[in-house]
């Protein structure tokens, strides 16, 4: 049995289903990220793992033990809340050691463990302050300290970085990653930031509407999204989704790419089990580049020229918007690219990296490797 196992978990709030048959199992030491849009039930699921919300249906096992109906304090988990939830009337030290005190750890030992954690998190100079006298980043650290000091079986994080400014968020992200590498404690981490999910996770669960859309390693999620939702949610800028119509041309299923200068290019859908009809193809911006940027090792490419609508420099990359099949499509080219708005440029589409989805079900079509 896996270290943390959620079996068929459902949650119903006042006859309204919020989560539906969630199945997740992760091994000890994994970093699971729950990611999804607001209101999809991430916090609810996390609170259920913590024992703060009842489970309507299903079972939760931690470390071989059924904890579905075990009180939160008995589950040996620690949680970092989005608002940090520091006890306002207690000093930082008291905040960090409160959990130990409740578990009857003697004072000397408490203080010693607190000092250790404070050193890891570099908050030693803040121990006598009240939370109200701390900055947002410092509060975040204290909240982490309160979780760390308990040395639990599982850490739960509910959007711990969402209240920090952009730069601090990136720094803390790295620190959390380092901390996980060092402590190797199992983590379940909630975020709606897909970059956080990609950088931190060993496993990602993409959720939408109370259902897990896909559970997998970050690269699986990124390179093999199972459906249109996952494809469009993960990645920034998000994947281009182009509606196309495939047709049988001399026994080969093909579709046409039409650019705004009227050129058309036929592309064969090799190795897909599909017939003619409507499909959505997904192309990540980095798989649609100009000649300069393209990777020379790519062989299966389509080269075409297209008028350029918009050029958005973003520092290390520049994003170029062109029209394909009447839809706006973002291409990613080098930051120092000379492509001009209103001009025309040559582009390369990496055909090995296109994703094909069924238009009705939104499901990915498998490619049979030929």
């Amino acid at each position, binding site marked *: 049995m896996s270290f943390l196992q959620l079996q068929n978990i459902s949650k119903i709030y006042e006859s309204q289903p919020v989560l539906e048959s969630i199945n997740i199992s992760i091994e000890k030491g994994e970093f699971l990220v729950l990611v999804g849009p607001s209101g999809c039930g991430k916090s609810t699921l996390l609170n259920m793992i913590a024992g703060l919300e009842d489970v309507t249906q299903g079972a939760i096992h931690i470390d071989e033990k059924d904890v579905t109906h075990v009180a939160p304090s008995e589950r040996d988990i620690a949680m970092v809340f*989005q608002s940090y939830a520091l006890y*306002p009337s207690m000093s930082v030290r008291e905040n960090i050691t409160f*959990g130990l005190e409740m578990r009857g750890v003697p004072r000397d030992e408490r203080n010693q463990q607190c000092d250790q954690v404070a050193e890891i998190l570099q908050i030693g100079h803040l121990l006598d302050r009240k939370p109200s006298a701390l900055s947002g980043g410092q509060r975040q650290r204290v909240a982490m300290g309160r979780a760390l000091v308990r040395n639990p079986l599982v850490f739960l994080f509910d959007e711990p970085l969402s209240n920090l400014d952009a730069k601090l968020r990136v720094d803390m992200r790295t620190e959390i990653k380092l901390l996980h590498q060092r402590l190797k404690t199992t983590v379940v981490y909630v975020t709606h930031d897909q970059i956080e999910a990609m950088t931190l996770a060993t496993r990602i669960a993409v959720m939408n509407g109370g259902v897990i859309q896909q559970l997998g390693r970050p690269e699986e999620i990124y390179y093999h999204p199972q459906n249109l939702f996952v494809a469009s949610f993960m990645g920034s800028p998000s994947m281009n989704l182009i509606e196309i119509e495939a047709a049988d041309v001399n026994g080969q299923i093909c579709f046409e790419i039409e650019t705004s200068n009227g050129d058309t290019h036929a592309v064969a859908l090799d190795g897909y089990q599909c017939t003619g009809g409507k499909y959505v193809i997904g192309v990540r911006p980095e798989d649609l580049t100009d000649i300069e940027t393209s990777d020379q090792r790519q062989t299966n490419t389509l080269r075409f020229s297209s008028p350029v609508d918009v050029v958005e420099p973003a520092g290390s990359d520049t994003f170029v918007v062109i029209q394909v099949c009447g839809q706006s499509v973002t291409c990613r080219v080098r930051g120092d690219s000379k492509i001009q708005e209103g001009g025309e440029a040559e582009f390369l589409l990496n055909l090995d990296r296109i994703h094909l989805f069924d238009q009705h079900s939104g499901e990915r079509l498998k490619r049979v490797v030929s």
Partner: protein
Amino acid sequence: MMRASLPGSAMRSALYLILLVFSIFYLVPLYVMLVNSFKELDEIRSGAMLALPDNFTLAPWESAWSTAQIGVSPTGLKPYFINSIAMVIPAVLISTLIGAINGYVLSKWQFRGHRWVFGLLLFSCFIPFQIVLIPMAKTLGILGIAGSTPGLVLVHVVYGIGFSTLFFRNYYEAFPTELIRAAQLDGAGFFMIFARILLPSSGPIIVVCIIWQFTNIWNDFLFGASFTDFDSQPITVALNNLVSSSTGVKEYNVHFAGAILAALPTLIVYIVSGRYFVRGLMAGSVKG
């Protein structure tokens, strides 16, 4: 800016004038009571109510406190003052504590039908005193504490819980639930969370509740008159007996002194903690 400031300052002066008039209006009775309580009876009879005393004397205060005729015995207000203290302190503390726990449960440990319970408690705030007199007298009789200080304490606690629950529930409603959850994960139980997490942050609302309960219970006359015997009467009832005792001449100076004595504790409570009162009311209302 310059043009706006002229009518602005005129407005301001008018406002201050009105405020001044009102404060005089409210303060004059107090002033009259105060100056006349230091006069001899003859001086009061001679007319000038507003004048300062010619012969300053503390005799009316001494009389009101320890020798004046209350009902049948010449004890002064002192024993009744002590009765009131012995009644008001437990009544205020118990009703505040119960209100705090009620508020904690109704906001953070909601159970099926919690809205109903809260609604009924709120409703109890609006029940007129007179309606409960007879059922209450019966209840006290059954419990065997009729006509005693504990009986009166019980009456005030029961009557006060509605308001104290309202205060605390609204205050705790704005208290972040994540703190409770964090404490639960830390292993703290129901009362531990209440004592260590909520109570230390409840200063302002505790002050509000104590002031409110204290003034109401101290100033209560009806319950005091209905549910006590001679030896457990609160000061409000004793003051009434002092003022309305029919024997001999009306000693206005003693009455004034007695009335001030009876009002003194509430006055002190307001002066000492009045600013917390306003702050606590704001804290509850702005966030909740």
